[in-house]
């Protein structure tokens, strides 16, 4: 593979197997300098395994990785000064304070004492952790831990930052704050590789997204291009207090211009290229014996396309537990 200056990550036919699980299967993608690239997939899709191989914590079975043009499969440790890594679980030292943790991480990159302390103080301020600076990391809340872990990942000002599910398992307010901080980092020119199983998060933050399922990339494109096919669609979601027979087939026959699907018990989704008139539809449904609780127009989003391509229920992704699959 030839190194193009603008492509800071080039991955070719990357494959990794654990005993009988093919965790990552012939994965190919490039990330350009300054891009915000997302890996979106359910638990156990192979996101962490991919990050581990890219950052030198795991060895690929086959395939090549170039980071900043350096072949990481041959020289896994030479590209490490270019990258910062925020793992899926906070892995700082519980017995050190927030400040000591940051300063220690900076020292690992050979940064001198003055600069180390200055940067640590600066990041503690940016991440709103000044009050916790002298408290032991072990006593931090989950959200604070995640914030400090991100700060530790960028203390050496890396060109490329890897974030593995940064908002999983923390409260909504902290998650929002973190997304803003990550967006700011990207705004300052850092190339970002983020994995997530939150579709909305990927849609909101990323320039380009790869859908990964069972180790395969099933789609990879810019968010705009991905949404394109559903952009012009009109969608209405219904929920019912009861159900009657196979009404979807009947409805599809009665309204040829509309597409009816049943995403779950008591739920119905109507999609059309034209605007949908909800009033008459509700009356018709009630005549069928369905008790309509709610009819809601929704803006088609990345979720629709994700569900369409992967066949994975969006709801099940949202409910996924914090203890992301993988390492035991």
């Amino acid at each position, binding site marked *: 593979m030839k190194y193009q200056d603008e492509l800071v990550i080039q991955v070719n036919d990357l494959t990794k197997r654990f005993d009988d699980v093919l965790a990552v299967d012939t994965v190919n993608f490039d990330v350009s300098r300054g891009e915000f690239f997302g890996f979106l997939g359910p638990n156990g899709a192979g996101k962490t395994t991919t990050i581990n191989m890219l*950052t*030198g*914590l*795991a*060895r690929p079975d086959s395939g090549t990785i170039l980071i900043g043009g350096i072949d990481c499969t041959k020289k*896994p*440790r*030479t590209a*490490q*000064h270019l*990258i910062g*890594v925020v*793992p899926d*679980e906070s*892995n*700082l*030292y*519980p*017995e*050190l304070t927030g400040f000591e943790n940051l300063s*220690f*991480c900076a*020292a*690992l*990159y*050979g*940064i*001198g004492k003055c600069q180390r302390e200055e940067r640590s103080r600066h990041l503690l301020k940016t991440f709103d952790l000044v009050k916790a600076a002298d408290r032991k990391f072990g006593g931090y809340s989950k959200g604070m831990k995640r914030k400090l872990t991100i700060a*530790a990942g960028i203390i050496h000002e890396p060109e490329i930052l890897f974030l593995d599910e940064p908002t999983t398992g923390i409260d909504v307010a902290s998650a929002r704050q973190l997304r803003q901080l990550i967006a700011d980092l990207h705004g300052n020119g850092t190339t970002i590789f983020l994995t997530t199983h939150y579709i909305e998060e990927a849609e909101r933050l990323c320039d380009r997204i790869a859908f990964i399922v069972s180790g395969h990339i099933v789609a990879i494109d810019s968010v705009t291009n991905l949404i394109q096919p559903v952009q012009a669609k009109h969608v209405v979601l219904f929920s019912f207090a009861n159900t009657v027979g196979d009404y979807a087939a009947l409805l599809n026959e009665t309204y040829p211009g509309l597409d009816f699907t049943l995403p779950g018990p008591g739920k119905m989704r109507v999609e059309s290229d034209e605007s949908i008139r909800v009033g008459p539809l509700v009356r018709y449904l009630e005549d069928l014996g369905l008790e309509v609780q709610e009819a809601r127009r929704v803006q088609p989003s990345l979720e629709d396309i994700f569900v369409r391509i992967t066949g994975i229920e969006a709801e099940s992704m949202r409910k996924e537990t914090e203890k992301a699959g993988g390492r035991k």
Partner: protein
Amino acid sequence: MKAWIAFWNILVKDMKTYYLKPPNISWGLMFPLAWTSMFFIRSGSGLDAIPTILPGVVAVSILFGTTSMLSVAVTFEKKQRSFERLLLAPIQLEMLMLAKTSGAILFGTANAFVPVIMAAFLFDLSGISWISWIVFISATFLIAVTSTFLGLFIAVAVKEVFEAQTFSNFFRFPMMFLCGLFFPIEKLPILIKPFSYILPLTYGVDILQGTLNGSQIMPLTLDFLMLGIFCFGLFYLSLRNIRIRWIA
């Protein structure tokens, strides 16, 4: 230069978080004291037995001060995943592991001098020449390095912290009994004797015996050579295991 900043900070952090903790310090003081008293009581001998007892107490103090301490510290960091930070840093693995072990080596060497200082109050050690002291200090240092690397070897071979403890005892106790401390090696049963010679501590103790009471059984150069081989061998094997098992 950059690598030294990392090296120094790893060493200082480990010193603060593991080795210079009050329980460890008091352990480092109590342990030799207990051992020495046990020897006196058991042998019923007087203070003039100190030169015969001292090499053993020194060797055992180092062994117990380093092996499990390092293997527990490393296994613990591996388990709570902070070890990944070290593996992500742009430092050569050799350098990284030297930094990680140097705290235990220093702690072990310092531990060795606790019994020596205690002995100096009870017995006139001035008969020992300065050359002997240099040999003694080099030997203590090498024993500390070897037993630290043994701890590293153990840490890399196990997953759980308690396994690290158990496994280090699996090495330490046979080593204690077979290195010529309790029974002279010549008097060991013929079938057990070869085991003495595959344990690093045997060679370390032999040097200490030579310097403190002149009762060594092997040439000094052979002792140093064997200790050196154990150091390199254990370090090399540990790094190999890290590369194979931890960056899998």
